[in-house]
Structure formats: structure tokens, C-alpha cells
């Protein structure tokens, strides 16, 4: 019986995470349009519901009801497979993100369940995310090739080349973090940044490299060359329509949210915030052990979402601020600037751990 209960809880958590991810992705589209409108001194969507809040639902309905056609020259199955792969790889990463601390539940007196607010805490969580990111290129490549359209193919090749170029610097930036934490589990990394002891203060250079690579991996402006509309019409999704186009666009917004969540858990302490111990003590004092812990977890989760949504907003802010790179600039930045910088960052981190850390520890004693 115990296995069944555990399985049911797991299934509920998985469905909840899917729901939250999809909801945030949906409202990111609304947010993007509102932010764009604000920056361009417009109003933005305001017809569907109050302040246009139902606009994402209207868009979803449109995606379902629009006619979908597969070009006669395309290879049919690969054409369908492309957006599905894109969506799948986007959804897969949210499994290992720690959304919050844990929820305690007393089923019987003395028997307390301690359920972490996360689908699964994998021992090699970061490597899993990194692996899935490296799969992300297939959705675009398959779709672009299958369309049998010159614009799509060019977009697909650009996307593949760009993603692999920035993957290396991303990995090197992650390695600098791992040298400090010594663990690949994202939950461990978050727990080590207890309170205000965030990694950003130790890894400012690594953070800049990581966020640049995150922009490139999500194909967001200024790295949106695979789909830049002034050169390639729609890039890899030129031929797509209806739900399949929806998948491609949706995958981009899910990727944005997931990478924002990764940034906030790796560099900005995830669900940790300064003064959390004090808040926790107050809560357990006034509400009791279990209820206080749960309310504390809720506050932590809200903090986590606030951080992540700030970075989603940052993506939009950058999109409407910076112009697009030229392809040679993009390649130069990736290979000739970010990779050497990331390597220097690793060496600096190694030196700091071996040399500065004992010095500071002995100084504090």
C-alpha cells in the first residue's frame, strides 16, 4: 500500500508541475506582449477579459481551430515529429527543478511524510539538464529539414550551429559552480546557498557567461538568428501552422521559464532568501511545527517564482532593447570570447578555492 500512496503523490506532483509550467508559458506570451507594448508606448492586448487577461486562452483556442497543412513537398512524418520533439525536450527539464523546500504531512500520529516540492531530485541533476539541452537542437533540425523550404533549412542549420557553439561555454560555467558545491544535485546546490549566501557573489563572471549562453540556447534576441523574420521569414517554422506552430512557440516560452528557474537556483539561491531562518522561527513559533514549516515552504516557493519570473521579464526586456547579432559576431562571441573567459573563470575559481579560502578561514579564526 505504501508504494501506491507514494506513486499517487508522485503522479499528482508530476501533473502539477506540468500544469504550472504550461500556465507560466501561456502567460509569458501575454507578458511578452504587454512588456513590448509598455516599451513601445502602446496598450497591448486588452480585449479578451479584464486587461486582456484571457488573451492566452483565446490564442490557445485559435491554435486548436486553425487549419493545419503539411506542404506537399515535405516529408510528412518528420514534419510532425519536429515540433513534438521540441515540446518534449522543453517539458523534460522541469522534472529536476527544486521549486521549494518540502511539505510535511502527518498521516498518523508520529508518522510524518516529508515530501520535497520537486518532481525528482536526481543525483546528477545538472548533467541531466545539460543532456536534455543538447537534445533540444533536434526538434528544430528535424522540423527545418522536413519542411523542404530553403528558409527553414537555413534556420535549422543556424540553430544547430549556434546551440552547439554556446553549449561548451555553458558547460564550463556550470563546472565552475560544481567546483564550489561538489555536488551535481540541484537541490544540494540550492541548499548550500542558505539565506543570502548566493553563488552570484562568488561567480559573477560565471553568471554572465551562463545567462548569455541561456539566451543563445533559447534562441532569444539578440541570438534569434534561426528565426529572424527580416532575413528568413519565420526561420525553421516558416511552413508550420496551427498546433504545430503553437508547439514551437510554446517550447520557446517553456525553455525561457526553465532556464530562468535554472539561473535562479544555480546563482540566486532558489527558494532561499535573506532572513529566512528568522521567518521560519517566527512561523513555527506561532503556527506549530508542521504548519509553520509548510507556510515557510510556501513563502520560499513564492520567492523562487518571483526570482524566476524576474528573469523571464529580463528576457523580454533584452528582446525589446538590443538589436540582433550578425552571424559572424555570434560565432566570434561564442568561440573567441566566451570559451576563453569561461576557462579563465575555472582557473580563477580553482585558485580561489585552494588559496583564498584557507586564508579567509584562518583569518576568521
Amino acid at each position, binding site marked *: 500500500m505504501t508504494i501506491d500512496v507514494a506513486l499517487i503523490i508522485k503522479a499528482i506532483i508530476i501533473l502539477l508541475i506540468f500544469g504550472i509550467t504550461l500556465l507560466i508559458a501561456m502567460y509569458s506570451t501575454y507578458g511578452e506582449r504587454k512588456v513590448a507594448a509598455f516599451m513601445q508606448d502602446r496598450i497591448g492586448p486588452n480585449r479578451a477579459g479584464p486587461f486582456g487577461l484571457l488573451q492566452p486562452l483565446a490564442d490557445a483556442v485559435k491554435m486548436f481551430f486553425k487549419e493545419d497543412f503539411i506542404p506537399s513537398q515535405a516529408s510528412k512524418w518528420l514534419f510532425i515529429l519536429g515540433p513534438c520533439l521540441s515540446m518534449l525536450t522543453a517539458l523534460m527539464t522541469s522534472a529536476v527543478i527544486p521549486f521549494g523546500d518540502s511539505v510535511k504531512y502527518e498521516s498518523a500520529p508520529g508518522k510524518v511524510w516529508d515530501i520535497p516540492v520537486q518532481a525528482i531530485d536526481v543525483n546528477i541533476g545538472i548533467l541531466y539538464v545539460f543532456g536534455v539541452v543538447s537534445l533540444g537542437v533536434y526538434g528544430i533540425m528535424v522540423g527545418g529539414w522536413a519542411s523542404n523550404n530553403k528558409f527553414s533549412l537555413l534556420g535549422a542549420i543556424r540553430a544547430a550551429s549556434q546551440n552547439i557553439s554556446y553549449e561548451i561555454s555553458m558547460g564550463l560555467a556550470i563546472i565552475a559552480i560544481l567546483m564550489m558545491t561538489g555536488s551535481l544535485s540541484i537541490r544540494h546546490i540550492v541548499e548550500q546557498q542558505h539565506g543570502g549566501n548566493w553563488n552570484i557573489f562568488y561567480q559573477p563572471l560565471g553568471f554572465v557567461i551562463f545567462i548569455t549562453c541561456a539566451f543563445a540556447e533559447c534562441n532569444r534576441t539578440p541570438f534569434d538568428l534561426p528565426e529572424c523574420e527580416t532575413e528568413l521569414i519565420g526561420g525553421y517554422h516558416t511552413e508550420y501552422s496551427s498546433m504545430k506552430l503553437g508547439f514551437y512557440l510554446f517550447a520557446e516560452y517553456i525553455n525561457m521559464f526553465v532556464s530562468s528557474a535554472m539561473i535562479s537556483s544555480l546563482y540566486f539561491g532558489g527558494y532561499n532568501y535573506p532572513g529566512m531562518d528568522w521567518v521560519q522561527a517566527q512561523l513555527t513559533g506561532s503556527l506549530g511545527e508542521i504548519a509553520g514549516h509548510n507556510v515557510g515552504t510556501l513563502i520560499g516557493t513564492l520567492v523562487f517564482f518571483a526570482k524566476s519570473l524576474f528573469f523571464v521579464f529580463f528576457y523580454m526586456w533584452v528582446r525589446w532593447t538590443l538589436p540582433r547579432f550578425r*552571424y559572424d559576431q555570434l560565432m566570434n562571441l561564442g568561440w573567441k570570447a566566451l570559451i576563453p573567459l569561461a576557462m579563465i573563470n575555472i582557473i580563477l575559481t580553482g585558485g580561489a578555492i585552494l588559496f583564498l579560502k584557507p586564508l579567509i578561514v584562518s583569518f576568521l579564526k
Partner: protein
Amino acid sequence: MRTLIDFVQRIFKTNMVSEFGTIFLFIVTAIVLIVSMLMLAKLLRPHKPNVEKLTTYESGEDPIGNANVQFNVRFYVVALVFLLFEVELVFLFPWAVVFGQATLIQQTDGLWGWFSLVEMLIFVGILVLGLAYAWAKGYLDWVRPQPKVPVIETKVPANLYQKVNEKYGRPSVNEK
């Protein structure tokens, strides 16, 4: 064979595989979600294709040839260089995890940290040589687009506007 299956079964009960089992469950749920969305959309939407709709889009022109354009070999070279750096990265991950381990440093009186750092520097240094080679040979240089300025044959000299501007001064927005 029997022992092998027993072995696999025992592993499946341990932590690691049940972790990946949950991930497998997650992936299966995602696939079910995607397929059901596609199916639902297929039921709801109209389907009235015609020849015009189904042609490949090429800015309103009839497409010439198919999309098999031979592209620049540089994409291939970049993918090659990437592959080798990816292998290097995979070697770096286990190193990074054990590098700062306090117990190992204590056991070796602090030698471990320096030893592993130097080893890693040699390894990375060898690969940086590779990057430097590719860089110096120009394999990483992309072709820079040269803007083509159209030359128009006209009787008005090209620098006429410049002269006019200099003579009368450019109207400034700030001047009232």
C-alpha cells in the same frame, strides 16, 4: 543470465534507478500530453487543402528546386571542434565534483587540491592548444558580409548633399 537479471532487479530497487524511473514517468506523461493535444486539434480543425496551399513558401514565387542547398563547410568544422570540446567537458565533470572535497584534501594535507588542479590545467592546456590552432588557422572566422553600396550613374555628384549640408548647416531638432 539468471544472475544478470537478479543483478538488474536489485539495482532497480535502489535509489538511482527509481530516480530515473520517475523521470521516465515524467517523459511518458509529456508524450501523452503532446499526442493528445495534437489529436484534439486534429478533431477540431477544418481540413480543406488545395494545391496552392500546399506549395512550399518562397515569398510568393514558385520554388525552384528543393531545399537541398549545399551549405558552408564551416558549419561542419565548427561541429567537429565542438565535439572534441564536449568530450573534454565530460572529463571535467567528475573532476569538478571531487576537486574541492574536504575529506580528500585533509587526507593528503592539502596536496590533493593542487595536484588535481595542475593535472586539470595540463589537460585543459592541451585542448586550448587545439582551440588556438583552429583560431590561428582561421577555422573559427566566419565570412563577414560585405555591404554592396549601389553605384548609380547620375549627373548629380555624390558629394552634393554633403556640400549643401555644410553650407547651410544641418537643421537640428533642438533648435527652436
